């Protein structure tokens, strides 16, 4: 369980953010969540999302806010002419709204990403996708959280496994067809909001970037924030046209990096 002290500091910060985003009038309350969150409006830059075309899957009720599974998928042909460039994920109830930004290229083949996120309390989660043609899609989903995500472990993190990374790709690809890649790295994702035993804040230290390259060119780049669960878990697609190597690199705030390579086999 999180300590009482941690509850207080987290709540205070949540309160601070809520002051900025809380609906002040009934009209605001009726607006979709993406219009109510400053950080989301900044991404939209005044554009209105087209309806549909994006799906966000989260459990209706989560019994563990420290790692809530999330999948987002955007309908897109993922061609050079028409593809998803970025998917932004936002929390409306965490101390800071950004969860992650996933940047894709047509070589991803499919605009679908799965990860695990921290949710401090019951709230809506928002996903906004931007295509290369400047189109936006947005969706919001409500999640009820019964145990706070600020249960954020870290003090019981097994140091021996720090930066230990795993990648799994399909045994075989068909040329140009998307296949799902699973990645996992052991890292406490220290939020910067927790206090140590002496009551001082433990500085933020997170994996802030994950990059996947197929034969040397970037296919997916994820920018992660403190609302990504400890031991970042990320699933995405790649659609290689030739055999070779998939390399995944993780960068963290302490200046450490890890690279894992796996072969990509085509017939």
């Amino acid at each position: 369980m999180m300590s009482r002290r941690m509850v207080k500091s987290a709540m205070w910060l949540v309160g601070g953010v809520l002051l900025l985003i809380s609906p002040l009038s009934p009209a605001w309350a009726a607006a979709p969540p993406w219009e109510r969150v400053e950080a989301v409006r900044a991404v939209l830059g005044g554009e209105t999302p087209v309806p549909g075309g994006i799906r966000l899957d989260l459990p209706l009720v989560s019994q563990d806010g420290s790692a809530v599974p999330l999948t987002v998928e955007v309908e897109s042909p993922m061609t050079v002419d028409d593809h998803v460039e970025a998917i932004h994920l936002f929390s409306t109830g965490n101390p800071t709204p950004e969860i992650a930004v996933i940047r894709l290229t047509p070589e991803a083949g499919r605009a679908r990403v799965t990860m695990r996120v921290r949710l401090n309390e019951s709230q809506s989660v928002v996903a906004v996708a931007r295509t290369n043609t400047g189109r936006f899609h947005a969706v919001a989903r409500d999640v009820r959280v019964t145990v706070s995500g600020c249960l954020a472990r870290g003090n019981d993190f097994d140091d021996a496994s720090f930066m230990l990374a795993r990648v799994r790709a399909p045994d075989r690809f068909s040329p140009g067809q998307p296949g799902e890649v699973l990645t996992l790295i052991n890292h406490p994702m220290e939020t910067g909001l927790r206090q140590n035993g002496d009551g001082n804040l433990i500085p933020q230290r997170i994996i802030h970037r994950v990059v996947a390259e197929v034969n040397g060119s970037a296919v997916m780049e994820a920018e992660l924030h403190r609302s990504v669960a400890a031991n970042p878990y990320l699933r995405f697609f790649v659609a290689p046209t030739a055999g070779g190597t998939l390399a995944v690199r993780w960068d963290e705030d302490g200046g450490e990096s890890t690279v894992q390579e796996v072969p990509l086999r085509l017939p």
Partner: protein
Amino acid sequence: MTRGRINRRQALKLMGAMGAGPFLAAGGRIPPAAAGGSAGRVVVVGGGFGGATLAKYLKRFDPAVEVTLVEPSRRHFTCPFSNLYLGGLYEFDALGHGYEELVRRYGVQVIHSMADDVDADARTVRLAGGETLSWDRLVLSPGIDIRWGELEGYTRAAAEKAPHAWQAGPQTHLLKKQLEAMEDGGTFILVAPENPFRCPPGPYERVAMVANYFKSHKPRSKILLLDAKDNFSKQGLFLDGWRHNYGEMIEWVGRSHDGGVVRVDADRLEVETEFGTLHQASVLNVVPPQRAGFIAQRAGVTDASGWVPVEPRTFASRKVPGVYVIGDATEAAPMPKSGFCANAQGKVTAAAIVADLAGVDGPDPSWANTCYSTVAPGYGISVAGVYGVREGHIAELAGGVSPADADAAFRRREAEYAVAWYRAITQDTWGTA
């Protein structure tokens, strides 16, 4: 008629004053309604912790309610303490509880059959024999069903080789036999699911009880717990308790260390994890993904998750009027899927139904839960919670776990309390401790 009403009102007042909940058990009988007048027909499906408790407390609160309980088994064998049976600390027969008290003492009509279907518009339940029962209010407490095939390779047939033993009965015997037949030096693998599932501490108590059996019979054996989660109920207490009692025998691998199992090969007793590691077992115990018992789906009360959303105050279905659902089948988080919770929900919902039939407001609900886990003979740990409704949701109002630094005498007492708890709750539910 009027007199009957008044009596029931008085009864309801009394229930309110006592605060419905486990402690209601202390209350006496309530005077019956006017002779001949039925206060309504209630059909209860499932005679486990939730259903048997509810049927009994309906009759205690208002004997004029006609209560029919549908349950296929003549004796319900409980999951609670089935781990102790596997560990050699409890007799299987002592886990069985019949329905004599409900019938003889409380006048519940018990029909030993399976409910096959529900017609919510006609307000009927169809039984396996084709017979139909009419109801004014229907209660479902069917427990869980396994989501066969959700975990690749884990089918009904696979469970005959790699048992789940998550419903007490033949599956429990099968697992026990396999453990007994295993050679010393073998590996027992338990696969634990994601939330939500029946009995959050159950997998962790189970490996402790298997370790207890190994310790005296097969001391060179190993236990591997492959988990789809990174944290679990009473984690610190279990990890300490395992180490204290069994040294390095039990190894737990959480999801972020590649503990998530994605495929089961029951013929080869082999499992594959998310990142492709293969593990070979001598005995393989799979606690699979679950959902509400199938009758809940037939009644149309489940949602996309496979569980049943309920009104927090009463456990009335959010989807179908006149139907109440309690126990493991419901989405009642933060209340865990435990026998103790199902029992507490049975009492609160019995009070809500009596109030509903009488056309008055029910009492404010309050539920309590304690889950004891036996780590070793004379070594028990617990988690307790008190729940109420806040802002339209069930909330934990107080709670905690056993102290991390308790001494041996404390752990011994908690092991004794566990046995006392089992006697008390089965006495309260079936009258057959």
